[in-house]
């Protein structure tokens, strides 16, 4: 198909149109709105598939499409365009986003059925799709930045969708602010690119990395990493993701599991050329990845809120991806591969969780679940498959992708390699542990259901068709995607033209790594079984060890923020308000007042006595004469 590039804009346009229509349309669209939204998401998916087919029709090195819409900000040397670039990397994301996106739209139709603001919800979802697609389709960093902040906005609106809940509003604000900190990094990076390369379009920038100093590139790398940390909830900017679970579950599934949070991975992979030339930056990346994958996993173990537990796991899984991306050409492909598979199973898991909550009067505390497998079989099966996938059960998606990453981590070589590999393995073990914990607490064991605030016990039931179908589809993805991708390294080959690929030389053989991975996985499962399968689960959480308590509080990272940033900030602003009022303003008012005082005093001279006036005159004359004579004398 010739000039397929003209279709690219349509990818973004369709959901954008949806958002506009739904948000401006007003109440009259309340009844049909959700279907319009879903349809437009689907349209965009169809277009994506068409373009994919078209892309497959062309040789690997000639698969990139460009579409230049118009010149956006032309000022002197600063030339920003609205232009798209569709290559294998963005194609992958487009498919994931539109695919999973459409499914979740469908799911939401059921999930949000009883919300009177459903139309608005779909408007926001479409807005998100548009922004996310813009992010991955942009051909320059500035346009990427637009999408980057756009998804931030969408996520803000969706997390805070139930605005009447203060917790939701706060969570939304927090998410946006933390992201802004990351965005600072991105915007400064763009400025640095402009001053270094005179442009910020992918092609020229990534092509010219050879012509500038490593210092600059390292700086760029670190700035981009900062951005990635914000968006992908990596330490130290991870704190918002847990709270973000205040949003409706489909949102958590789409934005905070499958797509938006992985934008950081995309950014780093996309900027591979920069990182490849800046080892120090890469080191920073892998460190962040490794730390986060453990951090998230540990947090995941301690949470009783099913969504927060999954959020922790998301953090951890993205940690894997970042780690992989930090490894350079040996890792990029696997990072993306894990990203896609994770997109399937984590979305599946969240939808499952949503379905459970749907059946349990929106109860989120797993300690109040139990024995649900009999009541919601489909949910159980799909969730179970997702579970197996994520813990890396041999043969399922997660197994292939995660295994590759661990292998690559070891292949980094040297002590680093060992440390990273070790961390990755440990992470795998903990993942198995907490996911099993979730599984057991939710679907096995005896019922621990509690009456809700209206005092009635929940009557768990299977969710409507609109919700189960997406779960089933995603379950398929979680099962087969991995296998498909690693079939003759198809995925690696597919991405290679963009990200380049080289085989790492692991000190351990692939087989060893695999067995180790499986071993630790089994270990983790076993531990979890002993902890939660054998003994009954107390409804009120036990006090727990120091680590557990810390983990429940996100390892105190939030408390740190609160004390240092929030409190400190409040004090700073208060004192500044005082300064402004008393000092800056005080000086002015003081001057005025002092003139008033002076006036008051001088006024006293005018005491009404003619003779005083005469004296002043006489004195004045005397001074005048003296002065004149003095002038002459001097």
């Amino acid at each position, binding site marked *: 198909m010739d000039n397929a590039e003209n279709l690219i804009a349509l990818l973004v346009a369709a959901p954008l149109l949806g958002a506009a229509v739904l948000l401006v349309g007003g109440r009259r669209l309340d009844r049909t709105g959700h279907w319009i939204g879903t349809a437009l998401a689907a349209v965009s998916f169809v277009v994506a598939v068409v373009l994919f087919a078209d892309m497959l029709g062309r040789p690997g090195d000639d698969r990139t499409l460009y579409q230049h819409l118009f010149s956006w900000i032309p000022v002197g040397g600063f030339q920003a365009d609205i232009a798209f670039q569709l290559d294998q990397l963005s194609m992958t994301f487009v498919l994931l986003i539109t695919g999973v996106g459409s499914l979740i739209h469908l799911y939401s139709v059921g999930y949000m059925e009883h919300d009177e603001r459903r139309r608005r919800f779909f408007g926001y979802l479409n807005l998100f799709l548009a922004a996310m697609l813009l992010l991955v389709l942009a051909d320059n960093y500035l346009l990427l930045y637009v999408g980057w902040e756009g998804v931030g906005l969408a996520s803000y609106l969706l997390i805070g969708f139930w605005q009447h809940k203060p917790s939701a509003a706060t969570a939304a604000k927090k998410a946006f602010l933390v992201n802004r900190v990351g965005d600072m990094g991105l915007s400064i990076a763009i400025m640095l690119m402009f001053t270094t390369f005179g442009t910020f379009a992918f092609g020229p920038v990534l092509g010219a990395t050879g012509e500038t100093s490593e210092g600059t590139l390292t700086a760029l790398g670190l700035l981009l990493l900062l951005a990635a940390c914000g968006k992908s909830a990596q330490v130290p900017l991870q704190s918002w993701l847990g709270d973000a679970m205040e949003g409706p579950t489909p949102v958590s599934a789409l934005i905070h599991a499958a797509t938006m949070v992985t934008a950081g991975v995309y950014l780093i992979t996309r900027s591979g050329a920069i990182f490849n030339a800046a080892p120090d930056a890469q080191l920073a990346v892998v460190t962040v990845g490794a730390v986060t994958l453990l951090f998230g996993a540990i947090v995941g173990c301690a949470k009783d809120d099913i969504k927060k537990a999954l959020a922790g796991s998301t953090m951890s899984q993205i940690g894997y991806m970042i780690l992989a991306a930090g490894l350079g050409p040996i890792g990029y492909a696997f990072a993306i591969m894990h990203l896609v598979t994770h997109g399937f199973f984590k979305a599946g898991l969240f939808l499952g969780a949503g379905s459970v909550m749907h059946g349990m009067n929106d109860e989120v505390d797993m300690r109040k679940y139990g024995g649900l497998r009999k009541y919601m079989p489909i949910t159980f099966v799909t969730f179970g498959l997702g579970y197996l996938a994520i813990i890396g059960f041999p043969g399922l998606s997660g197994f292939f992708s995660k295994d590759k990453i661990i292998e690559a981590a070891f292949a980094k070589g040297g002590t680093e390699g060992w440390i990273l590999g070790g961390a990755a393995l440990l992470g795998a073990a903990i993942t198995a542990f907490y996911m099993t914990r979730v599984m057991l607490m939710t679907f096995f064991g005896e019922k621990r259901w509690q009456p809700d605030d209206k005092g009635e016990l929940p009557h768990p039931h299977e969710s409507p068709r609109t919700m189960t179908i997406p779960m089933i589809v995603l379950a398929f993805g979680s099962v087969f995607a991995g296998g498909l991708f690693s079939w003759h390294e198809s995925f690696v080959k597919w991405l290679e033209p963009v990200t380049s690929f080289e085989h790492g030389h692991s000190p351990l053989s692939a087989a060893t790594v695999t067995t180790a991975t499986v071993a630790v996985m089994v270990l983790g499962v076993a531990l979890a079984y002993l902890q939660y399968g054998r003994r009954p689960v107390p409804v009120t959480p036990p006090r727990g060890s120091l680590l557990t308590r810390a983990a429940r509080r996100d390892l105190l990272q939030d408390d740190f923020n609160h004390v240092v940033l929030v409190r400190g900030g409040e004090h700073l602003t208060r004192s500044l308000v005082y300064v402004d009022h008393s000092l800056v303003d005080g000086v002015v008012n003081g001057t005025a007042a002092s003139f008033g005082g002076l006036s008051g005093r001088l*006024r006293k001279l005018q*005491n*009404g*006595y*003619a*003779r005083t006036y*005469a004296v002043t005159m006489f004195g004045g004359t005397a001074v005048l004469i003296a002065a004149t004579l003095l002038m002459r004398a001097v």
Partner: protein
Amino acid sequence: MNPVNYLYLAALLFTIGAAGVLIRRNAIVVFMCIELMLNACNLALVAFSRMHGNLDGQIIAFFTMVVAAAEVVVGLAIIVSLFRSRHSASVDDASLMKL
């Protein structure tokens, strides 16, 4: 006698008059002091007129006398009206307006 001495005298009288204006309360007296100052001026004028050997100074002295007379008329009128309405010719009593 050295004409300069007349000037000294004139300056002296002028100063005495000025001092009187500054220290005396009674409007009439104050006014007389002013007249004294004017006359000091006359003395100086006449002295200079003599020194320079032209009449200008003396002419001015005459004018000054006329002016002084006029001032007396106006001044007394004002002071008397003030005195009648306040039963006091003290300049210091007339201090309604101040500050």
